[in-house]
């Protein structure tokens, strides 16, 4: 018996959710100019100050076949903000259909966004299609993370079947700069070391801004977390970090250490501060 046949999934109804946030710089302060929340998607703004934090939340408790979830955040000129998710996003076994998630992030001139969602946990036989699109103004920058965990390790679950499409597109002034069209399906799970090679979780971090080469050496110095294989590269106005691990916890610690270097020690969103989420 596999785990998914013995453990009931908390939510199997199709859900819809849309949360959209717009922030604008207004006389030295950042103001919330638009907040739309529909159905199962919420956006929480625990602090709206110099560097506001936006926390997206899917109240349906997870995703399954046929679900639709959309998050969007637009930062006006000069706005610097951090956005994250309240919990790890779970994609449950899909009896039929695919869950679709759209994330649209815009950063205005001179702005900066740290998009630091918590990890996505894919249950065996999950079917998830997610697109994250980031649009940067000519001199805007961003730091964007994606972390994925295959199966619930604490329950000894191994993922054998999967339909996971996770596309990340970053554009500057409308021109495509960075594309990660990850498609991880059943056949790929069974492939060798060029694909996962026994890893059960992985992360990709990308930073786009001018003059990033300087951050490469200090970033590489912290890529030594035991149980994690990680590497960084700087090219073409991008700084990328990829990491793979057997277990979610060391991966999370490695990400936190890398973020600390890239964000020059800035405090991580509270949800990221060493909780043992998603294990």
């Amino acid at each position: 018996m596999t785990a998914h046949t013995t453990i009931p999934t908390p939510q199997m109804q199709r859900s819809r959710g849309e949360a959209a946030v717009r922030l604008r710089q207004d006389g030295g302060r950042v103001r919330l100019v638009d907040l739309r929340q529909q159905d199962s998607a919420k956006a929480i703004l625990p602090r709206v100050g110099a560097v506001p934090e936006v926390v997206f939340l899917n109240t349906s408790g997870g995703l399954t076949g046929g679900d639709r979830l959309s998050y969007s955040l637009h930062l006006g000129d000069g706005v610097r903000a951090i956005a994250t998710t309240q919990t790890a996003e779970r994609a449950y076994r899909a009896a039929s259909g695919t869950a679709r998630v759209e994330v649209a992030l815009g950063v205005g001139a001179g702005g900066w966004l740290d998009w630091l969602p918590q990890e996505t946990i894919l249950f065996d036989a999950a079917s998830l299609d997610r697109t994250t699109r980031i649009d940067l103004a000519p001199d805007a920058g961003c730091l964007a993370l994606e972390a994925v965990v295959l199966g619930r390790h604490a329950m000894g679950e191994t993922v054998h079947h999967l339909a996971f499409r996770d596309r990340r597109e970053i554009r500057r002034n409308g021109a495509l700069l960075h594309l990660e069209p990850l498609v991880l399906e059943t056949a790929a799970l069974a492939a060798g070391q060029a694909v996962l090679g026994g890893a059960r979780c992985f992360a990709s971090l990308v930073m786009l801004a001018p003059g990033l080469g300087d951050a490469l050496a200090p970033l590489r110095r912290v890529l030594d977390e035991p149980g994690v294989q990680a590497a960084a590269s700087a090219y073409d106005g991008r700084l990328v970090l990829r990491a793979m691990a057997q277990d979610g916890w060391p991966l999370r610690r490695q990400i936190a250490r890398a973020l600390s270097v890239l964000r020059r020690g800035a405090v991580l969103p509270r949800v990221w501060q060493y909780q043992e989420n998603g294990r």
Partner: protein
Amino acid sequence: MTADALMTLVQWLSPAFPTGGFAYSHGMEQVIADGGIRSAADLEAWLADVLRFGAGRQDAILLAASLQPGADHAALATLSRAVQPSAERLRETTEQGEAFARTVAALTGQAALSAPLPVAFGAAAAGLGLPAAQVIALYLHAFASNLVSAAVRFVPLGQTEGQAALAALHPLIASLAETASTLGPDALESAALGADLAAMRHETLDVRIFKT
């Protein structure tokens, strides 16, 4: 005329053509250094995964799109750059594309598009009038063949073992080429996370023979 076109294609993909493929290992040098490829079977598995889930499939799709009449090669070059996962992988595809285009231009006396290799190759090969699946299959074969000869020298493996691994990949290459010839650039995808990470780790490998 088909024999003439085929000879041109084979010449462009030959290791003697100064595209310089021998200098790039696509991250495989790191895997060999880690002890991840020790036998012809390891090599075949690595190459099969890179072809099927990684740059093989991606280049096949970019090449297919670049062979199309009226292809927007500038947009395809942008796409090809955007999808590269690391500095060395970007270098591998752009330097080879430039060297290839430079040689074709010198031979034909006509301007050739300088772009990442599959795009530059597709732009040049479009005029040959050969079936797309055939061009793609031979392109992927040259990519795999180059890595086989690197592995034969540095794993090391016997020449015949290396060629047997390459021959065993022929059905996969033919089927990938057939599929890619029907797909558009929206079908670009990758699952080769391990190959990408190896290429990134290669940047800090102590002793390096290959540029990638």
